[in-house]
């Protein structure tokens, strides 16, 4: 044990300092969102990069989805399977626990992120282990696992290429399926050159091979592999991991200990349900018929088996999920399979990018669930930052009513703690709209007011500044429709 662990500083950049006070955020999440949104929408290079990367996804997804004989029926069935699972969550979780424990797996239930972190740190300490290889886990991001592991002096390597890149940059994943999609190959080459001392290249293949070489030795040397899990199968007591690179396969096979962490909502009743969910996740998430590796794990190395970990731990995390379960209106949000399709089609995401959200789960699903997982008043701005266009609801493979849930969050936030200026503005609006005479008088005066508008238009003094900073405002017509109708009736 002569070699000191590679020290990785606790991330402090704005991208990494996300989603709660674990890193002491520099400003209020809503202020940070507004600030970052202004910055990112003004960054045309960033917008082009994201929109061109997603352009490739749209083509691939449309191609694969059209191969289904009936995507609509498959979607409805997937929604109903998750509805069954979430609707009997206690039963299926207990069945899962019984089955997977019977084969030597340790199941730990964690109410909070602290409990989950403490358990994982404890397992690693008890084993006297130090080197950790991680395959992509958003639940791990949610509980800020890396920071906790690094604090203990463990050496932590993210093995998924995208995750490795953002780990080197000391920032949070940009998109929960495509963690490094905000970076161009040039930026990644510069990063590798700086951190790994490799030669500059503009070939994605060469860059991938650099990461491959770095990671190979780490898989073999690692004492502990940490993964997430895409599904937990109650019937057979297994977890299912979906990936493309093979890094999860290696991370759960070579080290002596495997720890998987997943949300309690990940359970599916039957193994054969995967015949539907695996291709749907791949199609919606990445435009693939099936991802490269879909692996079912039913325990540690069993008697007579050649290899595999001696210990297998599954951490089942609540961390706010039962709060969401208790809201029948939005319960279906627990059906989410984290495919990321709602981010990919979201016009807000496409223009502000992933880091702006400041959450583990970005995009529409993140805006819906974060206030439930954390706290409504601090995170309600995400539900307002939507034009309610419904592209998310339309694309969701398990039919989560995302756009309407954003509306419900807005209503719940206002009921729980109204913003008085908004409430009075809305009261005033409602009153005004119910005064036809006053309304008509205002419209008569408007053209006069608008004649003076050019004096201030587009400047801070302009009462319509929020509109006119980026757009022209239409002119009120001298003859409104009401005037026209009144004449017509005469």
């Amino acid at each position, binding site marked *: 044990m002569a070699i000191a662990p590679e020290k990785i500083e606790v991330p402090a950049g704005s991208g990494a300092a996300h989603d709660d006070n674990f890193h002491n955020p520099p400003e209020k999440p809503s202020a940070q969102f507004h600030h970052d949104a202004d910055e990112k929408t003004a960054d045309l290079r960033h917008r082009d990069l994201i929109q061109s990367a997603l352009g490739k996804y749209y083509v691939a997804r449309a191609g694969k989805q059209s191969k289904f004989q009936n995507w609509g029926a498959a979607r409805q069935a997937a929604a109903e399977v998750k509805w069954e699972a979430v609707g009997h969550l206690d039963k299926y979780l207990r069945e899962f626990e019984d089955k997977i424990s019977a084969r030597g797996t340790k199941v730990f239930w964690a109410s909070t992120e602290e409990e989950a972190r403490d358990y994982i740190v404890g397992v690693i300490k008890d084993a006297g282990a130090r080197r950790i290889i991680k395959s992509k886990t958003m639940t791990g991001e949610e509980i800020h696992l890396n920071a906790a592991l690094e604090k203990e002096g463990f050496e932590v390597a993210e093995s998924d290429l995208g995750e490795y890149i953002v780990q080197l940059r000391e920032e949070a994943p940009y998109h929960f399926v495509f963690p490094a999609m905000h970076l161009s190959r040039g930026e990644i080459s510069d990063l590798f050159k700086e951190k790994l001392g490799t030669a500059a290249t503009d070939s994605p293949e060469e860059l991938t091979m650099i990461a491959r070489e770095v990671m190979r030795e780490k898989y073999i040397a690692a004492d502990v592999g940490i993964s997430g899990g895409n599904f937990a199968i109650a019937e057979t007591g297994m977890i299912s991991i979906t990936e493309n690179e093979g890094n999860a396969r290696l991370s759960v096979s070579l080290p002596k200990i495997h720890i998987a962490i997943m949300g309690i909502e990940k359970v599916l009743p039957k193994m054969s349900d995967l015949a539907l969910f695996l291709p749907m996740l791949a199609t919606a998430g990445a435009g693939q018929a099936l991802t490269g590796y879909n692996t079912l794990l039913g325990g540690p190395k069993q008697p007579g088996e050649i290899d595999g970990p001696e210990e297998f731990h599954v951490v089942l995390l609540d961390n706010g999920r039962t709060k969401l379960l208790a809201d029948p209106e939005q319960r279906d949000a627990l059906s989410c399979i984290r495919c990321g399709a709602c981010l990919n089609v979201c016009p807000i995401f496409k223009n502000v990018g992933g880091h702006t959200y400041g959450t583990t789960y970005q995009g529409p699903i993140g805006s819906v669930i974060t206030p439930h997982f954390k706290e409504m008043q601090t995170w309600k701005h995400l539900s307002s930052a939507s034009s309610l266009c419904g592209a998310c609801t339309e694309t969701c493979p398990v039919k989560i009513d995302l756009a309407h849930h954003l509306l419900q969050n807005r209503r719940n936030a206002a009921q729980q703690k109204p913003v008085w200026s*908004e409430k009075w503005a809305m009261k005033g609006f409602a009153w005004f*709209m*119910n005064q036809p005479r006053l309304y008509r008088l205002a*419209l008569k005066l408007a053209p006069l007011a608008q004649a003076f508008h050019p004096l201030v238009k587009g400047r801070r003094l302009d009462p319509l500044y929020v509109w006119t900073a980026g757009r022209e405002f239409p002119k009120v017509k001298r003859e409104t*429709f009401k005037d026209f109708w009144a004449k017509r009736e005469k």
Partner: protein
Amino acid sequence: MIMKITLFIPCFVDSFYPQTGRAMVRIFEKLGHTLDYKPQLTCCGQPPFNAGYWDESRKVAVKVLDALGDAERVVIASGSCGAMLKVFYNELFKDTLREADARALGEKTFEFSDFLVNELGVTDIGAKFPHAVTWHDGCHGLRELGIKTEPRALLSNVEGLELREMGEAATCCGFGGLFSAKFPSISVAMGQVKTKSAVETDTKYIVSNDGSCLMHIQGVLDRERRGMKCLHLAEVLNQGW
């Protein structure tokens, strides 16, 4: 069959685009139907509804329920306000005394192109408009009300009109009501995605069935000095006869 059609003219059509309402009047008269309008109605209540202030929204919306209670058919020149009456009133008045009224109103309310094609069975008004145009699908009309083929069917029968679809036809223009004021930078960026895609079609007109989207798109086009003009579907169908 002659129908009695009650027009619902939203605030932005009344004040900014009254020509859209006039076009609807002329078209329905041509088709031989009787028209009615409730001048005391202006707003469907969507702004407070979308902001989360449902009590305030209901204050406006009950006036709509009251005024339109005895209407035979209600037709709206905006997919968004149409969705408010048809879809969101059901949520707004759920578990209230007016729940049944809201449902009844929703069932007899139609967006303009939906009404023409699916209720009246009309796809040809006899209009002429010798120009290339591109189409914008308003989100609420498209996704809440499922209107996609109807306006295209109507445009396909306009003499001389060539429809050139843009790549981003079904992408949100970024208006989103109060969203455009609360998050102006995002809203404008979305608008720019839309106008860029529209300009690529090399047409002079963007046509839609939602005036609120067109107001936003026109605002962005004018700021960018793109030289394109937004037209409501009713205005196009009102041409050449």
